[in-house]
């Protein structure tokens, strides 16, 4: 059964009367490339939650996730004239933020930052088994976690996740499967204890 998807931006094209809110991502990106900050703001508003979710679930840290999204969006603004439109804007911006998130993980590995305080985000309200699930997600290795987050939480297709994670689609599929299996085992173990 297909997973419910997050609401995606309308694939409308601008006809001169359309509001920015109704314009497609690609049209807004083109406007932004010409210096239209309002068009870029529309993209920021449209994507900030998804990007924050992506960064938060990969980095497991609210301050790091905020930094990743902020830096990623600024990088996107600076580089948006290089967005050629041959891929979806969402894939492009996910990839930028994911790179920032991986940078955080690398830096953390190098400096051996403590993990205790970065597992659960304060925005995760304690509701029944929600904390268990998020805590179990945090136990996955970053590459498996990223695949699970991209496909299951964000709702990317296998191809989009492959493009965003910069790995082949087969690798995403395998990581997703193994990630879910480990997650299920972790939740089972948690329930049993």
């Amino acid at each position: 059964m297909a997973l419910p998807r997050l609401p995606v931006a309308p694939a409308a094209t601008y006809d001169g009367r359309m509001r920015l809110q109704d314009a497609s991502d690609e049209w807004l990106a083109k406007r932004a490339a010409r210096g239209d900050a309002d068009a870029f703001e529309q993209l920021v508003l449209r994507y900030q939650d998804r990007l924050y979710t992506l960064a938060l679930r990969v980095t497991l840290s609210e301050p790091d996730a905020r930094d990743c999204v902020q830096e990623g969006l600024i990088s996107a603004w600076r580089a948006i004239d290089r967005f050629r439109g041959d891929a979806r804007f969402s894939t492009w911006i996910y990839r930028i933020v994911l790179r920032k998130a991986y940078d955080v993980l690398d830096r953390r590995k190098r400096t051996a930052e403590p993990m205790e305080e970065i597992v659960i985000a304060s925005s995760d309200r304690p509701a029944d088994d929600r904390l268990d699930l998020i805590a179990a997600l945090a136990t996955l290795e970053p590459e498996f976690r990223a695949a699970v987050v991209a496909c299951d939480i964000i709702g990317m297709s296998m191809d989009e996740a492959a493009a965003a994670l910069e790995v082949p689609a087969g690798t995403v599929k395998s990581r997703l499967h193994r990630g879910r299996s480990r997650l299920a085992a972790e939740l089972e173990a948690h329930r049993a204890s």
Partner: protein
Amino acid sequence: MTDNGHTDHEQLGRRLHEQGQAQAPPGLAGDVMRQVRAEPRQPPRTWLRPVALCAAVAVLLAASVAGVARIGAGQSSSASRSAETHSAMGAVPKNSLGQASGAGGQTPNAITQERRVAGVPTDKLATLSPLPFCAAQAHGYALRVPAGRYAAVSRQLQAWAAAKPAGAPAYDVQIRRAPASARLALTCP
């Protein structure tokens, strides 16, 4: 994977999708946009691209025309050189356009600064410079002549060619104008 496992995975995926969402901190978009507006983008100069393209095409075209002109001049030279080689006197000079020069054929080629004299007797030629050893199939020599002596040497070679006894060993000589400081020397073509 079993059906149960597959269903479990789907259920897990649904739970992740429902429970894994987070909301961006309230000030995030504002902070980003403040920074974005602080560094405005220069709108790309779209007119520059076609202009640059036109300029590149013009340069290429000019280069092609120049190249074709040079090749044309070279072919004309070859043609007239061939004609000279086959002429009895073998002393028809040429200019850069491959036309015979007006003043009795004495004007050297203005661009290539070369002329070819056919049938110069070997013994006479040897008085100018020692004959170098060239490949067996070479039927002639190149003669490098300092600029100041070009006309005189050219006339001399023509005279020798004109006076060549029948059957005497002879070579075709390509005369090349060299800087005034250069030494007169025969080389392989």
